[in-house]
């Protein structure tokens, strides 16, 4: 496995010695050893098929230090442009580490920091790494060096959504952080989670969050993630969800990058369907400019039949940005009556952007419905003329059409208050773009 990795990684012994604020409990030390072995050969480059469009060659050249060692990082408040999610519990991570002073109280909630959970409870051994496999390189990297994160164990229905605000901030040196979020549900439980990932200006940072979601029978997890980049950060996020019978997993991921953005975001989402009657929706939208690179990689694995999965992805690209969509759909030999759909559409606002779209359908059952669609193009001149013929100036017309284009994806957000927040962030991106061009 490790031999296929052509890129050395900057997380050598010196990094390892300074990382690891978690207690050195035996199970964790053992897990970390396996993880380090997985990445001993380096991080994936362009020769690794899954990373062909997003090779980490440049990343490996940056000398990151563990975020916990960066003593000149000073974040004393949540930036004001972070949206407010109505009724949500705010949980703030700075460089992957929980900040009680910036967060709402967690008292009475089924929510602990990873540090607390690992120190105080034995059941973490079966929870961490239960769903996310070390064969995924970013999961291995995260496991080797994770320092903090959150553990959400949902027993009943959590009425207040949880809003995780993750702030990346490098001081005078580039920093890397590897937070782990573990979400488990009991049968019938439900949870809504909103995540806002932002970076403060400065040196580049690497955010390498891993989220594990275990959806029990009849349980429901709805997760809405937005990643906004203005600088040259790396945001390489992996989500792995396992869904049991009649469980619901709905995820919506948004990636935004302004005209000065030159970073790399990859949002990789794996869902394993382990029971019948499950509902899976993994959708997303991205609006990027500058030289930003945004990658959506999804793997939906129908191991058991009688379930539906749906993916709607839309991207708007300006400047010389680069979009990637890799959508792999697996239907196991016995997973009959599977209904799986995926679509990716990209809209170019300039001549400079590029998109790589790679749908992969591996279907080994015969009684299934699977559909995929892909389209890439510029704004439609007939639509622009129609708007002009009603007196709408070209800039406003373009903004309306782009909003309309994204609306199909935004409509996949099942929670109305979240939909409003995300739509507003998209609209703000479009307005900034208008001002920049």
């Amino acid at each position, binding site marked *: 496995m490790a031999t296929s990795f052509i890129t050395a990684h900057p997380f050598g012994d010196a990094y390892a010695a300074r990382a690891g604020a978690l207690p050195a409990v035996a199970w964790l030390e053992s897990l970390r050893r396996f993880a380090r072995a997985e990445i001993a050969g380096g991080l994936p480059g362009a020769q690794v098929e899954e990373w062909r469009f997003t090779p980490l060659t440049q990343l490996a050249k940056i000398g990151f230090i563990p975020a916990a060692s960066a003593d000149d990082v000073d974040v004393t408040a949540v930036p004001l442009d972070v949206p407010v999610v109505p009724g949500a519990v705010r949980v703030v991570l700075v460089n992957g580490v929980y900040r009680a002073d910036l967060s709402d109280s967690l008292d009475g909630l089924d929510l602990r920091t990873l540090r607390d959970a690992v120190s105080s409870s034995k059941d973490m051994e079966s929870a961490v790494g239960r769903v996310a496999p070390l064969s995924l390189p970013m999961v291995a990297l995260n496991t080797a060096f994770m320092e903090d994160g959150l553990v959400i164990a949902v027993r009943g229905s959590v009425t207040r959504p949880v809003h995780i605000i993750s702030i990346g901030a490098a001081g005078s040196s580039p920093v890397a952080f590897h937070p782990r979020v573990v979400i488990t549900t009991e049968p019938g439980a439900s949870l809504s989670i909103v995540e806002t990932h932002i970076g403060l200006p400065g040196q580049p940072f690497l955010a390498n969050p891993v989220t594990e979601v275990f959806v029990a029978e009849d349980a429901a997890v709805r997760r809405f993630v937005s990643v906004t980049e203005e600088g040259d950060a790396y945001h390489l996020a992996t989500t792995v969800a396992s869904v049991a019978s009649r469980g619901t997993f709905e995820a919506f991921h948004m990636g935004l990058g302004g005209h000065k953005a030159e970073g790399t975001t990859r949002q990789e989402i794996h869902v394993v369907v382990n029971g019948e009657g499950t509902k899976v929706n993994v959708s997303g939208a991205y609006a990027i400019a500058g030289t930003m690179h945004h990658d959506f990689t999804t793997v939906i694995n129908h191991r058991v039949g009688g379930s539906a999965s749906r993916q709607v992805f839309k991207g708007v690209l300006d400047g010389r940005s680069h979009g990637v969509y890799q959508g792999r759909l697996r239907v196991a030999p016995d997973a009959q009556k599977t209904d799986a759909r995926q679509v990716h559409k990209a809209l170019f606002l300039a001549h400079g952007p590029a998109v790589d779209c790679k749908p992969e359908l591996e279907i080994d059952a015969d009684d299934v419905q699977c559909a995929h669609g892909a389209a890439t193009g510029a704004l*439609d*001149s*007939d*639509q622009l*003329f*129609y*708007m*002009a*013929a*009603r*007196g*709408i*100036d*070209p800039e*406003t*017309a373009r903004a*309306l*059409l782009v*909003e*309309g*284009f*994204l*609306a*199909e994806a935004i409509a996949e957000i099942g929670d109305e208050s979240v939909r409003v927040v995300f739509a507003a962030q998209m609209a703000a991106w479009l307005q900034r773009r208008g001002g920049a061009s």
Partner: protein
Amino acid sequence: MALLKIKNLHANVAGKEILKGISLTINAGEMHAIMGPNGTGKSTLSNVIAGRDGYEVTSGEVLLDDNNLLAMSADERARAGVFLAFQYPVEIPGVSTSNFLKTALNAKRRAAGLPEIDAMEFLKLVKAKTKALGIPDDIIKRQLNVGFSGGEKKRAEVLQMTLLEPRIAILDETDSGLDIDALKVVADGVNNLRSADRGFLVITHYQRLLNYIVPDHVHVMSGGRIVASGGKELALTLEAEGYAKYQAA
């Protein structure tokens, strides 16, 4: 008073001359109809007046209230008072009819130095207009023209026209694809808009529409030129005799 003056207008599409010297004056308060067989340049004329890309005016003038329309962009022309009702209204997924109408109305109001209309006022206005036109008002919640039937699309065009109150409205084959009931609704909407300070140019292949929207002047277009003009009775003659006489000429 001359509202729209077209003087010796020549225009090319993809290097080929389609309009070969059109002259036409529409006075305020008048309803003009242009009839003619397919492929004679009727739609080219409407697109040239509205300012669509891909039409090259080689000579001639188009003036609205003595302002040179040809020097304006398509959206400027619309704000100056040109309204083109499309033969095939474009579907725009993801954009609600309501948002579109409000944006268009406010663009026009800003250009006229008027304050923007707020959401409540706008809703009230639209409700009044849809009611007067006999259009269900839930049409404004739907995505613009998406999944609309042929009749709904044309009625939506009339609704837009009613809200935007143009100086000159051009109806390009508005009757195509309409059954007789839808045609009546559309015609009623147009007739209600007729006023002493507004002009209309109705482009049609068939006489049928002109039973409901009665023109003051009828022109026959053939081979990129207006080859005959007359009163409303000319339309009836054309219906009876066809265009053969003009095409042969």
